[in-house]
């Protein structure tokens, strides 16, 4: 393993020092490993707390700021944060209007956020939770852990952040969050594994002529291993299961081509070109595009595609000003 790190078990703590130094507009609680806005939002507005394992940067810490999150809890690499972190963050950011927890659907994340919400209840902060589960690579079922939350989380944090900034109340914010999650579907693929620092070696091995289809963002192996194929074909393999699962033909969409961290931006744009060609063919209208590394899996090469059905209201919230290290416009 070669990485720009010191002690593999201190990667997150060390990286938070750099985030702190790089971003005067953020405040880092190093004890709890929570990233806050330096300037808290105004009283009476709903606050948003998210968090998850580290290694997905800029998600979530890079999405803290006006128009998006109020706090992000950084877990160890690929390990959900602990309830203490969410409790500290929740108490800290509440402005009297309650707090929405944005949780990606992984057993660990859900359990830790659950415990935090249970404990926060005692503290008289109203907490609601939205759990994202957009990954069509995983068969949804009542009897399993269900789908993973992946790319839609980025879009949701942006849209819901704008709603909270506008003054929407907690129930309203939660309803928008659920609408976004319901209209979002994602599919990912990996060309290489990532290397978890504390593990020291690649999580999985892939041959030079194969790729993992349906990979998640934790470097967990995907659903299927396939022979490597040109970008045009890979784009079909990403899009088909999304369109099988949800109809995107009767309204505008946001198309989000996300990099897993290790693929050059040039290739991500190339993939997006392929996706757009397919979307045109399928009669799906793209109102907004997002291309880049937003929810990553350390140095994994690969990408994921997320489609989100939107209406005028969601588009307005998407276009609203946002000012975070990871997403910034209109401000």
């Amino acid at each position, binding site marked *: 393993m070669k990485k720009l790190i010191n002690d593999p*078990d201190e990667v997150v703590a060390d990286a938070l020092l750099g985030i702190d130094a790089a971003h005067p507009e953020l405040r880092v609680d190093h004890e709890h490993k929570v990233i806050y806005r330096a300037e808290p939002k105004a009283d009476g507005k709903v606050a948003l707390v998210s968090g998850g*394992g580290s290694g997905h940067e800029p998600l979530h810490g890079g999405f803290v700021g006006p128009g998006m999150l109020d706090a992000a809890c950084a*877990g*160890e*690499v*690929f*390990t*959900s*944060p*602990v*309830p*203490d972190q969410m409790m500290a963050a929740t108490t800290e950011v509440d402005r009297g209007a309650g707090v929405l927890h944005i949780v990606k659907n*992984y*057993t*660990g994340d859900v*359990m*830790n956020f*659950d*415990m935090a919400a249970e404990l926060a209840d005692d503290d008289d902060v109203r907490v609601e939770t939205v759990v994202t589960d957009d990954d069509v*690579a*995983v*068969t949804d*079922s009542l*009897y*399993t*852990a269900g789908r*993973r939350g992946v790319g839609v989380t980025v879009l949701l944090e942006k849209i819901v952040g704008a709603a909270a900034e506008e003054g929407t109340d907690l129930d309203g914010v939660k309803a928008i969050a659920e609408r976004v999650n319901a209209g979002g579907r994602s599919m990912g693929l990996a060309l290489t594994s990532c290397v*978890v620092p*504390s*593990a020291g*070696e690649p*999580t*999985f091995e892939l041959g030079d002529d194969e790729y993992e289809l349906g990979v*998640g963002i*934790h*470097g*967990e*192996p995907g*659903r*299927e291993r396939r022979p490597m194929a040109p970008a045009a074909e890979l784009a079909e393999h990403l899009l088909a299961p999304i369109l099988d699962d949800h109809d995107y033909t009767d309204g505008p969409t946001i198309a989000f081509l996300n990099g897993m961290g290790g693929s050059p931006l040039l290739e991500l744009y190339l993939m997006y070109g392929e996706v757009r060609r397919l979307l045109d063919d399928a009669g799906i209208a793209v109102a907004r595009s997002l291309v880049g590394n937003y929810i990553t899996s350390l140095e994994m090469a690969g990408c994921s595609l997320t489609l989100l059905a939107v209406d005028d209201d969601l588009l307005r919230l998407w276009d609203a000003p946002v000012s975070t290290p990871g997403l910034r416009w209109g401000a």
Partner: protein
Amino acid sequence: MADEVDLGTLVAWLRRFDERVQDERAHLTKLDSAIGDADHGANMARGMAAVRELLDGADTSTGEATIGGLFKKAGMTLVSKVGGASGPLYGTFLLRFGSSGGDRTSLDADGLADALDAALGGVVARGKAEAGDKTMVDAIEPAVAAMRDAIDGDQPLAAAVAAAAEAAAAGRDATEPMRARKGRASYLGERSEGHLDPGATSSALLFRALADAVESAG
């Protein structure tokens, strides 16, 4: 052979579990690489190191130390230090064990079985996994059942915990062919078959540590 486990033996249990976890850290991570995200070893090692620090600082010799007090602290330590799926699950295990032990400073065979049963109940309540879902429940549930059987069969405490350890190991091995329905391995669908579950493997270490601690105390 004692027919009770006292606080010292229970502390020894946790210390032995810590040792086994640190020894097996790389192995647990390797298992998690195959069907998960390669952090189970680091998670358990971080958590049990924190529990070890807690034990180092705790005075268990005074009359004030109770099973409930100690195990709740240990459980909260896991909850606060581990994260992921294993943090809440092992944390809840110890918390419920502590609640069951309450103000007592030692447990007889039945008391121990009750506490382990409560701990298992906590894991199931938190994680909603059933037997056969390829999780730690597949090691813990048979272990608790084997212990109860042994006690019902009037076997001594040491034999009962030894039976529990063996059942946990067998339960761990039984996870290999299973298809995961809970936790991160469930994303693999049928590709999760043919691999030991990491959490079941660490749970087998937990019951092995208990048997060893009881035997040494004997």
